[in-house]
């Protein structure tokens, strides 16, 4: 984001809103979850991913520390064992069919649990999950950093599963979030797209190689109120999720499709060419 671009950052609360903003033309480029982009394409929308943001399923699960003690869950256990112990917990998802929902279902099924019967998946808005955990309303949640990192740092929770660290079989090397834009915008403004990709690449490299410095920049520019330590930790903790070098390969896409099709038939038939435009990655 230092590649000499004058962008204005706009906070839109949810994926649907970002998508509406892109398709309505009021925003040119937005970071979206790949699965949303695929779904939109499946529904006939014109939207292209042109740069990767995270290429790990960066949605890490945490559970309340006390609950963990009660069920005897420790992060050192094998993933399957951890998941198997989750029986009977109340876990937050951001919506039926959302990324958090899918990953929970996937993880729980690894542990041999039936997500419909053995746990109760309750819908909580993404930005309220930390609060719901802190006030004891849920036992665990699953979201992108930093809310889960914060919960762990604050000593409220322990890690239950860390797809971002590549510990989950079947979803390594996966397109999680991507930068998207309307194809016509990308065609008309190739230099903007290229600049964004360059910036992305530099930022990713910085995050991968010097997470502390990247964290400091993030803190100074966007999160003055949050402690520097937390951000630095989070960045370094999540550094493996960024894509270095940036790729949007057909193989990654196939991985995504395979994962999506586990949950919904609606996206069948979406092709790499429809959803992804890797033109600028080479530049």
């Amino acid at each position, binding site marked *: 984001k230092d590649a000499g671009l004058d962008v204005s950052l706009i906070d839109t609360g949810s994926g649907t809103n970002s998508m509406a903003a892109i398709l309505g033309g009021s925003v040119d480029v937005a970071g979206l979850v790949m699965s949303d982009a695929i*779904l939109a394409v499946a*529904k006939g929308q014109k939207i292209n991913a042109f740069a990767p943001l995270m290429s790990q399923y960066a949605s890490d699960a945490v559970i309340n520390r006390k609950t963990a003690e009660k069920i005897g869950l420790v992060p050192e256990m094998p993933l399957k064992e951890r998941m198997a112990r989750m029986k009977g917990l109340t876990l937050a998802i951001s*919506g*039926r069919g959302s990324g958090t929902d899918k990953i929970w279902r996937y993880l729980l099924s690894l542990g041999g649990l039936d997500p419909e019967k053995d746990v*109760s998946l*309750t*819908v*909580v*808005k993404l930005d309220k999950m930390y609060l719901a955990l802190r006030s004891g*309303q849920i036992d665990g949640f699953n979201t992108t950093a930093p809310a889960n990192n914060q919960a762990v740092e604050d000593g409220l929770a322990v890690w239950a599963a860390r797809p971002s660290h590549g510990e989950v079989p079947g979803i390594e090397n996966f397109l999680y979030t991507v930068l998207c834009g309307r194809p016509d915008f990308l065609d008309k403004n190739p230099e903007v797209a290229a600049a964004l990709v360059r910036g992305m690449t530099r930022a990713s490299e910085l995050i991968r190689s010097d997470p502390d410095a990247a964290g400091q920049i993030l803190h100074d520019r966007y999160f003055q109120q949050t402690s520097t330590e937390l951000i630095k930790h989070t960045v370094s903790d999540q550094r493996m999720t960024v894509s270095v070098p940036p790729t949007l390969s057909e193989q990654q896409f196939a991985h995504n499709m395979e994962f999506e099709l586990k949950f919904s038939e609606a996206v069948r038939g979406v092709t790499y060419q429809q959803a992804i435009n890797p033109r600028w990655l080479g530049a």
Partner: protein
Amino acid sequence: MSTQALSETRAEPALSPSSRVWLYRAIFAVAMLAAWQAATGPLLDPFWVSSPVAVFKTLVAWTASGQLAYHLLITFKETFAGFVLGATAGVAFALLVGANDTLHRTVDPFVTAVYGVPKVALAPLFIMWFGIGLAPKIVLAAISVFFLVFFSTLRGVREVDLKMVDALRTMGAGKFAVQRMVIFPSALPWLFTGLKLGLPYGFVGAVAAEMMASNAGIGYLTQNSAGQLDTAGVFAALFALMVVTTLLNEALGRLESWIFRWR
């Protein structure tokens, strides 16, 4: 001849006024739906606005699976509980505060201030205090109803005809009797305005709380459909909600005209 002209104007029209109104309503509804259906596709992308046919299909499917009734009933229960709580508190508090001018003027700005706080911003407090079960939905519905009923009723209490109050007081009525016999009945039209404004907002409050955190209810249903980019689902849920709201408000209207039969 003129006699005839007059009696003609008095003759029953082919349709009674009430069924005429229903006819107009039907025409209006059909016209709207037709316009929407026609615009979907050529003018509007169904991805965003869906289409009456798609919405109808979703409704049929949900009705068949019993989902619709299930979620609707949950939202209805939450709202109903909230409505009863909020409306009762609103009326009681308005009668109390309205009885004394100093009290009224002292309290008014604080209530207004609280009223003007966007409840969404207080979601964390709601979650902490009321959890993520039924309670926060009921509370949010109750709060939404409370303020509208409170302010309307309070206004009604302040608008009472002082001549009637004086008349009752010379007859020896105490504060409470004046409230019961004069102030309350004369504030009733205002109270009903508050109820009719409040009921739909009660649903809005419950649904908003459901969108925040829940496993069931219309808010959950919309949120869910939205997450799957299923606009028809969102609209179907909202449509069901609209129907319920409207029917309940119509029922309030009936109740009201029964109460106001003295007019």
